């Protein structure tokens, strides 16, 4: 959203009311940690403009998640790769936040892409194709009664 991109916060001087943001424009991405993390640590990718306090308030208020310690770092996106025009291509930089949950809670990143059996609907093209391929493969296989012996040996 262009209006929020160049956000100018009002100036703060002693005695001013606390700045509140309605409808925050920040999105967190939960990522699977690359390195092994302690069981209570959750890893997020956050926008560069967010601070530790922002993330803490965000998680507590919007997701109702009790947050203990939180540490952030900025990951440099590589500028080394070159495209077909030999120009350097920059991967975007991003900020990573390591959030430790309070009250002894733990979190493990779940397996979101489990292996699923693909069943085609009855009478569809894909089902007929699958059946045909299955039959072809069956013809290629030798007689199981031969016990793995190839056709080269006579009889």
């Amino acid at each position, binding site marked *: *959203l262009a209006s929020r991109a160049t956000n100018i916060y009002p100036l703060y001087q002693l005695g001013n009311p606390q700045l509140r943001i309605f409808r925050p424009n920040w999105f*967190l991405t939960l990522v699977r940690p690359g390195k092994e993390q302690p069981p209570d640590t959750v890893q997020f990718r956050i926008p560069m403009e967010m601070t530790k306090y922002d993330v803490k308030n965000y998680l507590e208020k919007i997701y109702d998640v009790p947050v203990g310690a939180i540490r952030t770092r900025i990951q440099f996106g590589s500028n080394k790769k070159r495209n077909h025009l030999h120009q350097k291509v920059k991967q975007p930089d991003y900020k990573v936040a390591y959030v430790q949950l309070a009250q002894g809670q733990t*979190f493990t990143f779940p397996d*979101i*892409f489990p292996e699923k059996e693909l069943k085609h609907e009855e009478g569809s093209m894909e089902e007929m194709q699958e059946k045909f391929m299955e039959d072809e493969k069956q013809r290629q296989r030798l007689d199981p009664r031969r016990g793995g012996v190839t056709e080269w040996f006579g009889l």
Partner: protein
Amino acid sequence: MNINLILGIFILKGWDWVGREKSPLAALSWRSPSSSVAPCRALHTTISRRGLDEFFDLPENWGETTVKSGAPWTAKQLRTKSNEDLHKLWYVLLKEKNLLLTLEQEAKRQRVPMSSPERIRKVERSMIRLETVVNERESALRMLQTGQEKARPGAWRRDKFGHVYWYRFKEYAIPWYMNRRYKRKSFFTPKFVQPHIRLRLEKYLRQRARKTSLERRTQSKLKEKFPHANISAS
């Protein structure tokens, strides 16, 4: 400059969309029972406090290639909603977008195609429209109450090259005559820039004339070749 930002959310905890069968993209015609025309019982929704599980979809949808989702909210639909509803919808869309972004990143990590990636664009569009509707309302209110059209004050100013542009004011703690960096900016055009401005204007007019004459020439050629053809309005 780290400002302590506390997110102001009101009445969020008391509402959430009913389960996750209805995604936030479907237009909800949800009315409070007290103001409805037809008699109906009060609707009780349990607030889903799933914590970090809200970053992930329902377990049934894990591993699917396509997940069904509704159309994005249109500005027309959003204009019918109250401010509280829009506020709550913003957070619903925000959580949905977070969910989709986590899914996208995990799909990249596992080198697997993400299920129905168009959902992210739909949510983005809904949020943009929501923002425009809220800004419209805010601007109308400001206009009625104070007579100001814009929230941020500004002025038409000239820069060194003779361009006239809308300069938006910035908040400072000190007046402008004490601000050294601001005083180095010059909001006027020196006299020796006038010939350059004239040349630039001539160039612009020449380009515009060339474009119009080109259009006229192409239209006349087309009319010559195809005399009975319908000339487009453009």
